[in-house]
């Protein structure tokens, strides 16, 4: 899974994070290092669609984000779809 938007949503599913924290978290759990342009491209799109939103921050510049209810639903749908693909692929590999 390398879709930046899904990676960002998955990262925020465990709690609010600012950009750099998301980069580190994604690298840890997915082994993918998102570039700053790619990360903020995804953040922009996700915020436009209402799947994430900025939260009040004590530090002025590092803006944390949180996943919204719609974002969780979208993530759940996408992951369910991926899960079906993964399980089908694994089953077919076993039978091959």
């Amino acid at each position, binding site marked *: 899974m390398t879709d930046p938007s899904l990676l960002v949503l998955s990262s925020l599913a465990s709690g609010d994070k600012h950009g750099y924290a998301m980069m580190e978290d994604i690298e840890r759990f997915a082994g993918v290092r998102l570039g700053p342009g790619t990360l903020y491209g*995804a953040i922009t799109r996700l915020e436009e669609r209402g799947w994430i939103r900025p939260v009040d921050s004590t530090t002025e510049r590092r803006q944390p984000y949180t996943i919204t209810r719609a974002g969780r639903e979208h993530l759940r749908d996408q992951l369910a779809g991926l899960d079906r693909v993964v399980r089908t692929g694994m089953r077919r590999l076993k039978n091959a």
Partner: protein
Amino acid sequence: MKRVMRFLVRLYPSSWRKRYAAEFEALLEDATPTVRDTFDIFWGALKMQMTTWSFGRITLAGSVGGILVAAAIFLALPVNYVSQAVLWVTPADGSTSPGESGRSLVSNLARNIFVREYLASVIQKHNLYPGERAHMPLDDVIDKMKRNITLEATPYASPVHPDTLAFVVRFGYPDARVAQQVNDELMSRFIEGNLEIAQQLNSNWIFRVPDPPSLPVRPVSPNRTQFAGVGLFAGLLGGLTLAIVVRSRRGTTVGHA
């Protein structure tokens, strides 16, 4: 590196910068920058610009891009200048029509030009194809030179002697002056060959050179007008396709992040 990245942030649309620039720069301060990140920011800025551009603006940008790519290809392609000379062949007594025997003479002379040893000596003398000679066998370089020499019959004969056979000899090379010098040499070879054949066959022909080898002013290839036209068309097509793709993506934002 961070300075370059901060500069690249300016390439993002102003509305985006107003909203995200401060936190984006904070991210750049925290992260260890890599060259890949620099390209990533540039690419991100380009994509972000595309999302804010109008249909017409994307098409225009595609057209300009197409012309620029065509210009880059045009500049990268080797130029080819063609020197041209005209040769008249008339029987020495002026009474008989040159006909088939004249054509056969010219064909023999042409074979005389395409002799491997002779072309090798011309290549050495004028230091032709230095790049090719560095990595190609001499035989291949000679074949290339043969392809750059053309000899063809032309209807533009002498008005004084209408039965005169007229031939155009051309040689193409990336350097205009060298093309002219080599063509001059080929013409001399023609005339020398005529003297040898005349002695052998006891026939006599007069060779005249009404148009000596020209010094080409413009290259015959690549064709600038054609390149500009193809570049504009391809750019316009690419720009339109891109504009349609961007518009369709804007219209289907729900469901795909």
